[in-house]
């Protein structure tokens, strides 16, 4: 569980109104890495920004306007607000080896664990 403890969603700028919305996401864990899947419909590669700074991983995605100019909205369920998601990982992730793939509005991040965070087997002699 130590790993899960270390991957915590955090919130920036608590006093500001939430201009960004939190995307649907999923975290899975293997022995070597955490896999983060984030739904970012309407976000292209250009609109995506991923930073890892001071043990905090932040994902920001700007959506293209859902309803193009010149169309009248009849019914609306989706939003236009940007996506934002942040995690604290306290150095349990090897930030230099984070891999990202964005395809069809789905972002897949692999966050390899730092050596110190990997489970170790201790042989009994």
């Amino acid at each position, binding site marked *: *569980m130590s790993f*899960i*403890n270390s*991957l*915590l*969603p*955090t*919130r*920036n*700028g*608590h*006093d500001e109104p*939430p201009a960004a*919305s*939190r*995307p*649907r996401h*999923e*975290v*899975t*864990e*293997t022995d070597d890495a955490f*896999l983060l*899947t984030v*739904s*970012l*419909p*309407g*976000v*292209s590669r250009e609109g995506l920004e991923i930073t890892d700074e001071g043990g905090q991983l932040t994902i920001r995605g700007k959506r*293209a306007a*859902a*309803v193009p100019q*010149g*169309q*009248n*909205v*009849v*019914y*609306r*369920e*989706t*939003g236009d*607000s940007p*996506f934002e998601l942040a995690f*604290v990982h306290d150095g349990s992730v090897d930030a230099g080896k984070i891999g990202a793939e964005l*395809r*069809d*509005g*789905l972002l897949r991040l692999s966050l390899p664990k730092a050596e110190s965070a990997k489970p170790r087997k201790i042989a009994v002699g």
Partner: protein
Amino acid sequence: MRRPRNGGGHKPLPWRRLGTGLNRHPACNRGGTMRYIQFTQPSARTFAPARVGGRLGAGIEDEIGYLFGTALSAFAGTGRGQFPVDLSQDKDNTYVRAELPGVARDAIGVEIVDGSLSIKATRKDNRGETEDTVDFSRLVSLPDDVQSDKVSAAYENGILTVTLPRREESKPRKVTVQVS
């Protein structure tokens, strides 16, 4: 901020499926509102002042309210198997837009049945060794003036856009009347 006590009548959201390997906080049993934090495992460290923008003593309730509020606004009215849609029009077409991130193009089915647009999709979630399949389905009522034989669809960045041309006679015509 909306913070429904009983989960707001929503169906369980997909993260429930995350069960394997992820412990749930005991508070998760209180209604449906706690699911969002199931992988955060609140601890003294979670709510350390440095992590919550200096809000000393900020309760877990605040954090949950925040989590739930934003998650809801981002995905109002949809549970597992559902997805948000938009309907818009211009003078030539009616457009239906659906958020379906991560679906293969050949796993999307679009049909018109009795004046409604049926959108079906299957998403395969690959998590290392295990694979999970989620079926999406939605029926959208269409205006009467749709030319159902000329419908086209495109899928980009996880958004499906179905373009439904409007019949000629329903397009607004401009008639200039001479007043004598």
